[in-house]
């Protein structure tokens, strides 16, 4: 008996124990693995993640066709469809993820692992982003092919910079929401639903956000996608696009949002975890 119990203990002692940044990176890579590799093994998810935003996108393209709008509006809608994939990922697979984890019994495990919860969220973000990037690319390619839309980027470097900063800000917002959702039970599902159409409207997913009016659009700019979409459209459609702000101002604002959401996410995560523990909601399934 003694020999039998000593063997696993010895094996455990041989396990590499990383510390510091190395542990954070390994934990993040571990959590991102199921999102990058595992998700693609479930073919039906791949199908639904791509086809659902594409169907919505096509419906809005036909709205512009019914209105007799110029071709660039179809480009707006296709970009909006690709952005929808990111927003869906942030709301359902970042913000509401702890709700699913609570249902599946994983949340308690996350709370007791030695790396802490931050690398878990980092891995979720990284994996979610890479998986969604693939889906968004498919939506853009299929949409452009189906409706014969051509995108000409005027400054590729700036385009990638806007995209990169916006993604950091967006996933920072996702982590902030995740901490809020930690407290919720059944509400989580409905709240994620609530943040769909109103956000599509406020961020101008399917029309130039300037149409909301300058100050209304500025008010909705705390959602990183508002400024990101406007800047990307300026780089794609040039002077034909009614810009909200100059591109570099939008890059700077997105950078500020990214920093703000990362700090806020860290603060909220600690605060909400404390509240969830105190009120006994961490493992409350229903």
């Amino acid at each position, binding site marked *: 008996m003694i020999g039998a119990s000593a063997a696993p203990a010895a094996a455990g002692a041989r396990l590499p124990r990383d510390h510091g940044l190395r542990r954070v990176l390994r934990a993040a890579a571990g959590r991102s693995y199921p999102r990058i590799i595992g998700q693609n093994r479930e073919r039906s998810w791949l199908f*639904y993640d791509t086809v659902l935003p594409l169907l919505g996108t096509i419906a809005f393209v036909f709205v512009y066709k019914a209105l007799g709008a110029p071709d660039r509006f179809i480009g707006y809608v296709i970009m909006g469809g690709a952005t929808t994939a990111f927003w869906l990922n942030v709301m359902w697979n970042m913000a509401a993820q702890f709700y699913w984890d609570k249902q599946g019994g994983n949340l308690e495990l996350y709370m007791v692992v030695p790396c802490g919860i931050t690398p878990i969220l980092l891995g979720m973000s990284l994996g979610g982003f890479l998986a969604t990037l693939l889906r968004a690319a498919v939506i853009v390619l299929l949409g452009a092919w189906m409706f014969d839309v051509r995108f000409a980027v005027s400054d590729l470097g700036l385009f990638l910079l806007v995209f990169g900063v916006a993604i950091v800000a967006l996933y920072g917002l996702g982590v902030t929401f995740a901490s809020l959702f930690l407290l919720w039970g059944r509400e989580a599902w409905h709240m994620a639903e609530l943040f*769909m159409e109103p956000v599509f*409207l406020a961020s101008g997913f399917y029309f130039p956000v300037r*149409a909301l009016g300058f100050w209304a659009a500025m008010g909705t700019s705390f959602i990183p996608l508002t400024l990101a979409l406007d800047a990307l459209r300026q780089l794609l459609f040039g002077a034909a696009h009614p810009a909200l702000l100059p591109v570099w101002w939008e890059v700077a604002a997105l950078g500020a949002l990214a920093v703000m959401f990362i700090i806020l996410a860290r603060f909220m995560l600690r605060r909400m975890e404390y509240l969830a523990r105190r009120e006994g909601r961490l493992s409350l399934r229903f």
Partner: protein
Amino acid sequence: MATAAASVSRRSGSGPARWWRALRVAYWLGWQIETNWTDPLLFFIYSLAKPLGGVLILVFMYFVVARGGQGPLLGFFVVGTALWPFVLRGMMGTAWGLISDREHWRTLRYIYSAPIPFRAYLIGRSLAQATSAIAPALITLLFGRYVLGVPLHLETIDGWYAAAAMLLGIAGIVALGLAVVSAAMLISGEAWRMPEGVGAALYLVSGAIFPVTTLPGWLHPVAQVFPLTWWLEAMRRGLLGADTVKSFPWAGAGQVLLYQVLVTLSWIVLASLAFGVAERRARQLGILDQESAY
């Protein structure tokens, strides 16, 4: 014991009475599940935010292109967006009801083995979901009338026509819901996403936010197969009058209602058959209460 059993047997009734009681109780249960997750104010905001957000997206798309002008397409958008929550909640909600009973609450096996007609239970859940779409629909229509100036005037609304179309529409939505539930009974892994996929496809082909005439010609017959297309067309004619933008310009108002009756009845029969087949198959395979550990 024998007396008690006889009493229970008498109380359980038979046929329509049992159906009605199961439907009523399922409706109450569905309403509680749908609404009691929060306080009434937040539920009201939640109910309104999605459809109003949806209609405002279309309104801004419209104004960006039309540059402030008004036209009949605005009315088309408002009626379509106001009515779509009935589809979302009535059809997709029924499927999600079954899936959540199976996977989330894990009560399906107990409900199924209870002495109640299972179809009455599902239809009751579906009607509860559809009821929660009434307030957003009314407020979206009022918003269209008073804020956007859509011609929804009492004197031009054909009340009887619209009411008949609405009742038939709900029957069509329930039939579609049963058809989707039939598919959901036989699948597990992707069951959560399947109703959403069906809803998105119907949103595209049924003339919800643009006339069917805008679709490529090969999709026109597909659009005509679904009761939703005829329901939305009939509701627009009943609420907006003859000047509305039409998905079927070749059909008169009477024809549209007649087609709606025929297509809806066909779907009721088809959905009923599909449900029976799916239910038997799921029991044979032993997957009726199979959880996919989502």
